[in-house]
């Protein structure tokens, strides 16, 4: 998901990749709604750092900082606010309802806002009683009714959040019975929550539980928060209450928030059509239809691209970017609606074409046709050539054995499909039956997909995924649905440039199998969660440091994607050594390669390199060898002799 619009490429009529960005550019607003009761403020020993005191409130605020730090990069237009309840709140923020204070108004995330909060937290580290003084709790035993809390949230979001933004309240509390059993407060709590929901706000609860005070949602919250009842009809309401969470460690709260960090948004909402019942088909060649929504569960998170700013002296202002299309000769912009499309007139068309005209026409490219003729296509024509006139939808073509979907049939990330009962009643049962059937028969589907109005048709495999129960508390189970995997076209396939090669003998292979076995994770798979993108993190860390006017310390940066070499050597070191010995003995490895494309002389030299590196070193010292050696080490061979020698020196230095 590109977090920023690609400013210099606004003209997107053909680039499919751009399509998703406009949906993603929808703003997200999070209002942290944090309980400030005495128990939230009570200090305890920090679980990670010795000699430090922490509190639930501290943890909650710290998670608000972390979320803002992520938001600020992922969605620079997103906004965050913080509301405290159960506090006298004297001196801070403004009161919404009694005991409900807005600490941070809903504002677009920014460095100063985050720093402000960080400074507060730092001060609270120094003085553990600070938070309690800044946000004094209501008198012991008094709590504000939850109805007031929800109403406060409603008002704040209504007045301060952009209308079209997705709006969420992150409710953080450790009190499972906020009304201390007072029944009459229950109804207002329910109704105000309904109001909030109706205003398009989602409430995401984060309940703090600790061993001394276990959190029992059934005391109060299950009856007011909306669980995923089937009769709800609220398909996309997030599935119910999380199990009780322990957020005494900030990592847990953050891990939980990660699931909710990005609001769930469908990329498209279309139909999936079954084959027509007669060969002639219905009028559009499609039979029964069900509603489908598509989600991007795997999307490359890129670094934000830079933008241009104007220095107005006291303030930096981003420059707006506009692309105009000009007839160069006339220097007149042509409005988009009047633009026509065709093939390039070629490199030097103008010169020859305009010869008979007078001077002025010589610079631009023009094509002259009899008046009244229309030589070029309209934007709509052009779209039809992309889509072949097909409407958005997924057309189910049939089924194949699951084994037909090979590892290499892969060009682009997948999308996830989930039924949409709201557009076609009966979608869910049909979808579920199809899913069950395909799982039972070990089949994949083949489909023709046009996901957007402007996108080109592609063939896709439908990979069924049966749902898996959640594991652990508050965990995330695999949802049931189909993965839509785009298949390559013939146009996307490349021929193998290598057709023959030397192959390992039995012993070498066995030696390789030995160390591979030692490095094999049992029951494991590729674990995305273990690999945060190092380059992205490195970039973001510098961006953050720069925004906070702090020094960036590259030494402190840890790249988690590097191989764990110590473990590898411990497990398989000796076996790797044996494999290398087996390799030396393998007859196939001592062959001299004759290839048709390159001269034999060169080959021999290259093979020499593998055989005896020490010889190379002496040759290098004599200065008699360059390109062949570099080539054999996959190093560039361009440049002057001196540069080559330098490069060899570098290589030899780094490979003692």
């Amino acid at each position: 998901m590109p977090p920023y619009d690609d400013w210099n490429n606004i003209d997107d009529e053909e680039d499919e990749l751009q399509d998703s960005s406009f949906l993603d550019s929808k703003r997200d607003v999070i209002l942290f709604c944090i309980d400030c009761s005495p128990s939230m403020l009570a200090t305890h020993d920090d679980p990670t750092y010795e000699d430090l005191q922490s509190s639930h409130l501290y943890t909650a605020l710290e998670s608000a900082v972390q979320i803002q730090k992520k938001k600020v990069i992922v969605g620079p237009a997103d906004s965050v606010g913080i509301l405290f309840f159960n506090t006298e709140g004297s001196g801070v923020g403004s009161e919404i309802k009694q005991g409900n204070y807005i600490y941070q108004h809903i504002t677009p995330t920014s460095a100063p806002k985050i720093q402000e909060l960080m400074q507060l937290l730092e001060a609270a580290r120094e003085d553990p009683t600070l938070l309690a003084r800044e946000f004094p709790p209501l008198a012991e035993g008094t709590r504000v009714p939850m109805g007031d809390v929800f109403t406060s949230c409603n008002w704040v979001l209504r007045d301060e959040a952009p209308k079209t933004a997705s709006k969420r309240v992150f409710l953080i509390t450790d009190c499972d019975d906020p009304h201390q059993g007072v029944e009459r407060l229950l109804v207002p709590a329910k109704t105000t929550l309904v109001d909030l929901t109706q205003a398009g706000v989602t409430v995401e609860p984060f309940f703090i539980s600790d061993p001394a005070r276990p959190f029992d949602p059934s005391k109060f919250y299950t009856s007011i928060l909306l669980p995923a009842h089937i009769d709800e009809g609220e398909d996309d309401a997030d599935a119910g209450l999380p199990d009780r969470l322990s957020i005494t460690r900030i990592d847990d709260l953050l891990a939980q928030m990660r699931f909710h960090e990005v609001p769930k948004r469908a990329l498209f909402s279309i139909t999936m059509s079954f084959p027509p019942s007669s060969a002639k088909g219905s009028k559009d060649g499609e039979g029964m239809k069900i509603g489908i929504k598509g989600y991007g569960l795997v999307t490359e998170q890129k670094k934000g691209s830079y933008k241009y700013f104007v220095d107005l002296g006291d303030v930096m202002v981003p420059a707006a970017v506009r692309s105009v299309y000009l007839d160069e000769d006339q220097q007149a912009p042509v409005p988009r609606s009047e633009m026509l499309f065709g093939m390039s007139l070629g490199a030097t068309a103008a010169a020859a074409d305009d010869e008979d005209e007078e001077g002025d026409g010589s610079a631009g490219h023009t094509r002259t046709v009899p008046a009244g003729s229309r030589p070029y296509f309209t934007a709509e024509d052009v779209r039809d050539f992309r889509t072949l006139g097909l409407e958005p939808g997924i057309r189910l073509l049939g089924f194949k054995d699951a084994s037909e979907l090979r590892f290499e049939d892969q060009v682009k990330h997948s999308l996830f499909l989930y039924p949409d009962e709201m557009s076609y009643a009966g979608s869910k049962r049909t979808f579920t039956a199809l899913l069950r059937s395909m799982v039972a028969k070990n089949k994949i589907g083949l489909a023709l997909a046009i996901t957007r109005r402007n996108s080109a048709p592609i063939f896709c495999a439908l990979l069924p995924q049966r749902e898996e129960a959640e594991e652990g508390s508050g965990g995330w189970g695999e949802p049931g649905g189909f993965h839509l995997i785009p298949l390559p076209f013939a146009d996307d396939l490349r021929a193998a440039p290598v057709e023959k090669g030397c192959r390992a003998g039995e012993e070498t292979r066995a030696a390789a199998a030995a160390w591979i076995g030692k490095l094999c994770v049992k029951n494991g798979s590729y674990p995305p969660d273990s690999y945060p993108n190092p380059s992205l993190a490195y970039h973001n860390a510098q961006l953050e440091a720069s925004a906070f006017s702090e020094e960036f310390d590259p030494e402190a940066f840890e790249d988690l994607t590097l191989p764990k070499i110590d473990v590898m050597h411990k497990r398989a070191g000796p076996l790797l050594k044996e494999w290398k010995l087996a390799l030396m003995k393998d007859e196939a490895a001592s062959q001299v390669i004759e290839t048709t494309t390159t001269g034999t002389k060169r080959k021999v030299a290259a093979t020499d390199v593998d055989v005896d590196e020490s010889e190379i070193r002496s040759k290098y010292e004599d200065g008699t060898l360059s390109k062949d050696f570099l080539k054999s080490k996959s190093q560039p061979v361009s440049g002057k002799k001196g540069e080559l020698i330098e490069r060899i020196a570098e290589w030899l230095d780094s490979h003692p």
Partner: protein
Amino acid sequence: MPAERAGYTVTMFLVDISPSMGKMRTVELPGDQGTVEMTNLQWSLQFVKLKIQEMIFDGRKTDQCGVLTFGSDDTNNIVNERNGGYDHVSEFIPIAQPNYTTLAQLDELEPSEVIGDPVDALIVGIDTQDFYLGKKKSWTRKIVILTDGENPIEVEDWEETVKKMIDLDIILTVVGIDFDDEEIPFKEEEKSSIKEANEQFFHTLTDAMPNAVLGSLSAALTSLAYPTIKTVKSVLTGSVLRIGDVDGRPEEAAEIMVKTSKYTSMARPKSWKKFGKRGGGGDADEDGKAAYAQLVMRTEYLVDRAEHDDDDDDDEKPKLPKGKGKDADGDETMEGDEDARKEQMERVEKEELIRGFKYGSTYVPCPDGQFPRLHTIKGIDICGFFKAEHFRRELPMGEVHYIWGDPASAQQQVALSSIAQAMSVKGVMAIARWVARDGADAKMGVLSPSIFDSVDCLLFVQMPFADDVRKYTFPSLETLVNKKGEVVEKHPYLPTEEQQDAMDNFVDAMDLMYAGEKDEEGNRYPWHDLRYSYNPAIHRTKQALFHSAVVQDLAMNPMPPPHPELTKYFEPPKKLLKRARDAIEECQTAFKVKPVPKKVVRQRKDGHVQARDDDDEPLLLDVKPPRRTQTQSQMTSIKSETTPVAKPIAAGSDTEDEESDSAHIPAKKEGGDPALPTPARSISPEMAVDPGRAPGRIIGTTYPLRDFEKNISQGDVVSKAVEDLGHVVTEIALKPFSSRRHAELLECMKALRDTSLKEDEIDAWNDFLRDLKRACLSAHGNQEFWTEVRQQGRDMSLISKPEAAQHGGISAISETVAEEWQHHILISIRKRTPRHY
């Protein structure tokens, strides 16, 4: 034949323009667009133009061509200039990179009065090409002859010419009009004896050369229309496969020299150039011509200084991020405004701009456009292995790469082969970290072994980082829980056994495994073969680009339909559909899927308008028409909607039962008027008049004041009564035609305020009043009523601290605030109300 080097080619077209080429013929237009009359010359020029278009399309400077004519009235060629002879051969278009003009020039060719000799033209062509290429020995030389073969040819010494062509590695193509072709098959009736002899000669000529073909024009044109794929051999790039700590523990670590190349690489449709019609003014039409100019893009940078000079005092509206600050209302009119705004902005030169990043609403300058990059070292590091069966096929992010052992080193090949074989035998894949060049961003991915007939390699595909994976939650499709927390076995969302059977049959019936082409032994392949599935957008776009380049008027010559090859996989095979007919119909009958009619979105009372395509929320609300059609009063009337009072109310799910049924007969609900809380009748059927009490309420809408006073007199439910009366007042005020009850409502409010003050329900009153104001002043509110309330003055306003204190109560509101409040908010709200309309 080895894959051709793209470009670096000179193609000579030798076009016969002898009088015989003027013979008319009827040519079928593609698709069912009928036929058209044209000369053989025009027909053969179609071939030349298609070929030249392709060169223009690819736009390579090193892909050049020249056109010679034979049978031309005059003589103009380099051989004639040097040695004489070779008459009636003319250099029509000198060798160059072709462009649109080249095509226009070809259109001007007419059959001549004299006959020309193709062998003369061939010799001139070879010479012209050779002279032009001079020392560029590595260029590919192609010669194409187009002729009807109706005129005598001087055939002596042709072997010399062949020898020369072989020496120069020329690729010769002879395209003959109505030449006999066994493959189509085609045999021309009443062929002249000259043509027969000439055809024979061309056969002899082409057979004598290693790189020559002879074909008929009709076959050549057909094959040009077929989607063609440029077979690109992927480029080998050097890299290193590392295992373990190659620096610290080299004896236990390994470095294998490898080459990588692409296995899949996504091709995209060629881009269109943009054109604009030259000014509608007189000069364009004078000579009855219209000119179209190719447009150039210019990027403009704009800054709105005004916006940053004076900070307009608009505290009503939250400040939106600048730059792309489209207002939340974001509809078309706003876009227009946006454009208008841009018009007024000042242009800035790119040189004046500073590069930087956005950090939320803060800006971080970064003149280089990027921060120092993470230090990485080129190569592919193996991080571990896992069982291939655990591989998640939905996770790969992009294209697939081959990894080969260095083709120049047997040892490297064997090393890689041993790993690939061992992985294959053990059924494992590797986790690997790939750095394309020093300093490049690292990618994580998976290596899978691939064992070919005579070479072993690894395949790499990029996998997601933690940052790239979204974990959205979705409701279970299989386990449905009702309100009581019980798992439901039967539900419209769950397929019945009968439905499941129908689906199972359907999946079996639509099996494509044996629905494809037959092999030699008559066994069928699966239907849909990637290798023959052409990207329709690419080829259709290409076809259209070509079409518009050749055709002068698209209205006269519309685009022919797409080539059948492009759409062959758009529908399941007909035979299969026919066989599966029963299963498909059975499925349709069993599942009874029906479209849900779209509802019109009404504005919400609080102005939180949801954009129509806003994904989840509005759709979610689609099934709750009672709530939405009555949005203006939802805040207060929500509980009065439909649920029979006998039922415990579950928050937010009042309409649950109705919904689960009505999901399938959605129209049913529209009839109900939620403003009339009929279910309340069931509470007290004995009462003559419906008190209008919603479930859970002690105050009804019919006689609110009476209900209130009755409850207050009982003394024990004051808070509830105060709260409920507030709700009821708001509810009534927001109903249509409520004006006749305004006086009654003011009475109620008076009583309410009075009670609130005395019974220490001050906050309740203040809250109620705020709510009422918001509700009244919202889009579908009741501004009139609020005005009336305001006219009551201070006695109907918020309860302030001093006032509360008089009655021993507490208020958070200061007297000034209470006084000004009504007035102040009215003004500020007025300011925004127009936006709702």
